[in-house]
């Protein structure tokens, strides 16, 4: 077990190091950091001093190590665009994104799981087939399209929901939340629904496939023979045995949801870190881009590693097979 743990963690560290290398290369070689930080009046001597001060004259390997060292401490430098600490910029935007992603995850489970069960137990009926077909459409719709259509229907035509921004937010320490005010809650609905739609179809398809397998097993037949009510067999006995892969997929997908949230955030002008990243991309604000890449990849890799380790704890067979 310990060997597995060490191997898995080392693998994760290696991946993160590679991501950091990519971020560093972007940071160092896309545009000249000095040129991007100075204005026309800066003299050559000042530029040289700045170059020396930033350590850009050191060997590249040394610079990379320094970059990693700083990044581990959460120091990604200063934004080219507004001269603020990158880390504080991102920390400011993080709560908005996390709130959006978590709500979308909850929606996808609350809606996706029952839909999956229904399509599995009523196979061949028109509504089950219809849902199955709708799920293909759900997978095919890009998330910005869903956002635009939601805005068109609920904000422009029906005028029942705000189309942009976060509404009023309340700060709790450094965290800000929109859940405590009516306008904040109203502003959350459309973006989280837009973000969750793709995830709903994934959860639904997974639950359906798992349910169909579990329903064939002997303990379900036995439960039916014992006279357990039908709904209890489906929703308690069978469903409980399908939830493990669903939980895994949900945990693993939170990372990609954070990445996909940048599209939803752009459509709804949601002030999260995804929108910060897209703005950084448009202005070629490299430190912000590099920091976003590192942070999102870190969340992604950390979740995957955690899921793998949890699995190995539960199922000893995986310890050798995957390590």
């Amino acid at each position, binding site marked *: 077990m310990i060997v597995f743990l060490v191997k898995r963690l080392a693998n994760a560290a290696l991946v993160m190091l590679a991501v950091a290398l990519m971020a560093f290369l*972007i940071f160092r070689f896309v545009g000249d950091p000095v040129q991007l930080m100075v204005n026309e009046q800066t003299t050559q001597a000042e530029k040289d001093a700045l170059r020396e001060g930033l350590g850009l004259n050191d060997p590249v390997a040394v610079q990379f190590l320094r970059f990693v060292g700083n990044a581990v401490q959460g120091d990604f430098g200063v934004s080219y665009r507004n001269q603020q600490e990158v880390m504080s910029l991102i920390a400011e935007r993080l709560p908005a994104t996390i709130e959006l992603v978590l709500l979308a995850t909850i929606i996808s489970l609350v809606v996706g799981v029952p839909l999956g069960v229904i399509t599995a137990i009523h196979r061949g009926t028109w509504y089950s087939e219809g849902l199955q077909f709708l799920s*293909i*459409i759900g997978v095919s719709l*890009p998330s910005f399209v869903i956002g635009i259509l939601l805005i*068109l229907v609920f904000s422009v035509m029906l005028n029942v929901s705000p189309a942009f921004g976060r509404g009023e937010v309340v700060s709790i320490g450094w965290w800000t939340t929109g859940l405590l005010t009516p306008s904040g809650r109203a502003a959350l609905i459309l973006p989280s629904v837009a973000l969750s739609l793709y995830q709903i179809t994934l959860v639904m398809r997974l639950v359906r496939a798992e349910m169909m397998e579990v329903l064939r097993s002997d303990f379900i037949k036995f439960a039916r023979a014992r006279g357990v009510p039908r709904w209890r067999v489906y929703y308690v006995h069978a469903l409980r045995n399908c939830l493990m892969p669903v939980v895994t997929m949900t945990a693993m997908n939170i990372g990609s949801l954070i990445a996909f949230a*940048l*599209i939803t955030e752009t459509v709804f002008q949601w002030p999260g870190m995804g929108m910060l990243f897209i703005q950084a991309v448009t202005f*070629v604000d490299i430190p912000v881009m590099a920091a976003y890449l590192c942070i*999102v990849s870190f969340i992604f890799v950390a979740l995957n590693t955690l899921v793998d380790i949890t699995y190995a704890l539960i199922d000893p067979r995986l310890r050798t097979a995957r390590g």
Partner: protein
Amino acid sequence: MIANTQTSGRIARWRQSDLWWSFTRNKAAMFAAGLLALLVISAFTAPLYAPQNPFDPAQLDLLNAEYPPIWIEGGQWPFLLGTDTQGRDILSAILYGSRISILIGIASVLLALLVGIGSGLVAGYFGGLIENLLMRVGDILLSIPTILIAILVSAIVRELLPVSLRDVGAAGVLVLAIVLSGWVQYARTVRAQTAVERGKEYVQAAQLLEVPARRIMFSHILPNTLTPILVAATLNFGMAILTEATLSFLGIGMPASQPSLGTLIRLGNQFLFSGMWWITVFPVLQLCLLVVSVNLLGDWLRDALNPKLR
């Protein structure tokens, strides 16, 4: 004459295949194939009948701006689906835009196939260091969300290009971004399959006959790895179109002078609140039809080629 009988022989063989049989039994697949054919043909023959060339500024007339679709009060012939604020005919823009979207989709899938199959074959066949290296690179690429890779590649390559080339090279940059975020999947599939095939007798026989490695890989092993690749390529074609649309929507894809469907949606999105819904909704609809038809075909292909479901 010989070539002719050969092709008719191929068609006859194709008509007797399991795949064709399954296709004729599947209404969704036939519908999707028909729809896709219609969309592709209409996009590529657009210059023959489209009311205007939306890329040619000389053909745009501000006097024609902001017409609604023709069935709504104020609509104007020949602008069937209305015009945007610059007098651009929406229908023509959609047809020309689809052409760009489809071309970028095809180019990026083909290139990703080439890179993925090539590296997968070499890694699976020779093993050792090359294999290790490829798998590690794959691990790293897979541990970053693909959309993020595509955005980063697209943003960075554009930045590195000289300003004069940015608009001209936009399509190439998009293809590169999609290929770099997509080739790993093919490489892994081919590598796994190649590693299995390598141990089989027919490969050993060929090796004993001193057939060159290149020939064993490409003419002996490759055909046996193609089935899962075909399914993945079809589904990825849909994904590639979506990725292109997403990047263009975010403003880091096709420029407004050569709009793809994503660019059209981005431009139209600004007018959503002023009541001119048609500028956005029709490109959105076209994009969805395109991707849904590709995905339906991919879904059918996956089931039809799955030996477990036969």
